């Protein structure tokens, strides 16, 4: 490898490593410094993609054998279970990505340079410090976007045949909502950039990783808590009483029911346990009549809202990401290494 020539500049191919993209300047430095992390992310992504493509092929074999899409898979029970299992495993792994990348890529990104003094080394070269910051963040963000977009697309593609089967995954659950569309990209970007900012403030790699882990878990909890609030709840009401066989409104396929209550003639809502304690059917009927219950009122989120909710949520996360990035650049200009 020591094939250095004595002529300066322009012969930059002399020290080029055997593998890796052809890079120059600051991009070369950032890639070289973080190449272990970057290659790990790319390799893990490739393995995960291959595995999901294989799982999708298995699923399609099974479904075609069953006669899908002519035969509805609504009634499939235990036969579908091994395939459901694969979804659980994959979505759990995908759900960990924001935390893992935040802790192992985001937190050490600048904290390592600040801790070991290499920030001083890099920023005292001719290339400006803002360029260093921009390329560090930019290259890392690019890698994250490429990786998470690919995973999101392939996971969504694998899931699409059984998307409306609540027995596989509820679309409102983190397992499906946070792993498809723009959500995994935005969640990961936000967590990683926040990890970088935590590293910049703490200036110690290990401390930054620990704090970023806590932060990433909190982000997941808060996100899960507000996930349903991203949608516009649809309310459907009936006027055929509540006791009859088909009195309950029919919801669209894969709709996620949020709440159900009795509706009175005056438009009031009563809990659906009203009159539940009456001992006989007649007594219950009388009780409901006295309460003036005329039908059901059901709140739900249709699956048609899923994409809109994901984009809305992702845009909030991306706005937060932009704010943290702005902080990092202000820090880069004012607070020095």
């Amino acid at each position: 490898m020591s094939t250095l020539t004595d002529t300066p500049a322009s012969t930059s191919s002399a020290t080029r490593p055997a593998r890796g993209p052809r890079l120059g300047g600051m991009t070369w430095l950032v890639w070289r410094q973080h190449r272990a992390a970057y290659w790990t992310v790319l390799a893990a992504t490739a393995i995960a993609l291959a595995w999901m493509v294989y799982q999708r092929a298995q699923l399609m074999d099974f479904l075609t054998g069953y006669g899908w899409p002519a035969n509805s898979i609504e009634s499939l029970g235990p036969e579908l279970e091994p395939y459901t299992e694969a979804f659980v495993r994959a979505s759990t792994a995908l759900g960990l990505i924001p935390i893992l990348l935040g802790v192992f890529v985001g937190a050490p990104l600048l904290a390592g340079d600040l801790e070991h003094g290499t920030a001083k080394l890099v920023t005292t070269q001719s290339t400006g410090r803002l360029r260093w910051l921009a390329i560090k963040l930019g290259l890392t963000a690019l890698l994250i976007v490429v990786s998470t977009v690919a995973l999101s697309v392939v996971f969504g593609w694998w899931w699409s045949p059984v998307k409306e089967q609540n027995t596989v995954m509820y679309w409102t659950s983190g397992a499906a909502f946070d792993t498809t569309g723009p959500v995994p990209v935005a969640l990961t970007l936000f967590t990683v950039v926040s990890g970088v900012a935590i590293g910049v403030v703490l200036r110690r790699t290990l401390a930054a990783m620990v704090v970023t882990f806590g932060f990433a878990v909190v982000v997941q909890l808060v996100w899960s808590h507000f996930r349903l609030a991203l949608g516009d709840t649809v309310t459907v009401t009936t006027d055929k009483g509540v006791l009859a066989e088909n009195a309950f409104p029919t919801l669209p396929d894969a709709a996620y029911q949020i709440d159900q209550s009795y509706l009175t003639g005056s438009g009031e809502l009563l809990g659906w346990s009203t009159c539940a304690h009456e001992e006989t059917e007649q007594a219950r009927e009388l009780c409901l009549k006295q309460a003036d219950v005329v039908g059901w009122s059901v709140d739900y989120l249709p699956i048609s809202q899923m994409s809109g909710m994901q984009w809305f949520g992702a845009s909030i996360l991306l706005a937060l990401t932009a704010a943290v990035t702005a902080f990092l650049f202000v820090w880069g200009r004012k607070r020095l290494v």
Partner: protein
Amino acid sequence: MSDGTYAGGPALEAVGLGKRYRRGWALRDCSFRLPTGRICGLVGPNGAGKTTLLGIAAHVLEPTAGDLRIFGAGPGSAEAGRRTAFLAQEKPLFRRFTVAETLRLGRELNPGSWDQGAAEHIVRAGNVPLDARIGTLSGGQRTRVAFALAFGKRPDLLLLDEPMSDLDPLVRHELMGTLMAEAAEHGTTVLMSSHMLAELESVCDYLVVIASGGVRLAGDVDELREAHTLVTGVRDGEGTPRDLAHHTVVESRPSGRQYTALLRPDGPISGPWETDTPNLEELLLAYLRSSEAPPLITPSAQVPGQAHGIRAVAA
């Protein structure tokens, strides 16, 4: 002393420079000029602010007060960044990079000014293999690579913070030789902090001494030395001998009747005294030991318009 160095303006100029951390001032009221082309030693007791001063010049620290200019430009400017190289005290390098990759870092980040030949020459002179990882090198070898990186940038102003602290005498001598040869050939200005007083004597032709109160001594080494006289003799009684009293006594060391003092003479010295020009080490030690001695800043090191409250020295 030829002073053609004034022509292009100073390489570095500090005016009322100060830096305060949470625990107090690390550097205070620091004003001096470093003319272009000089090799300047920066000396002071631990905690005097040498590292802070170099950090401000290298733009890794922001001053709390005052101003510092490098060839007339602010430390954060692109021009100052391009013309300055900084070797930090801890000699930071990427531990997982090979030596060749470390030099490539210099080349990639200093397009247009990188001198691969000079950098490689310094590395090869120490028999450091180019494919060795930085993490596997000894402290001295690592310092050598850090030196190569600083030299390869071809700076007009080289800032070195304790560059010699972990080198054996042989390597120290060799690297100092390289430093002087490079500086002479390219007209590089060097500002170097060090505790090795003897080492400085052989390398530096300019000197800045800072202590908690600010700049104590600044100027051309020969001028500074000649402005002082070391007197030895036998005295009668206690205190400063009467015939020396009208000179500025920087430091006096009576031992019994034997009396030794470093003076800044004001006129000819009369009396039964043996006089000598102090060497750099004697001068530095005297100023570092006696903090109440008045500072001396020679005209070439003075910032115009700054009142120093001292007499100018006749060079």
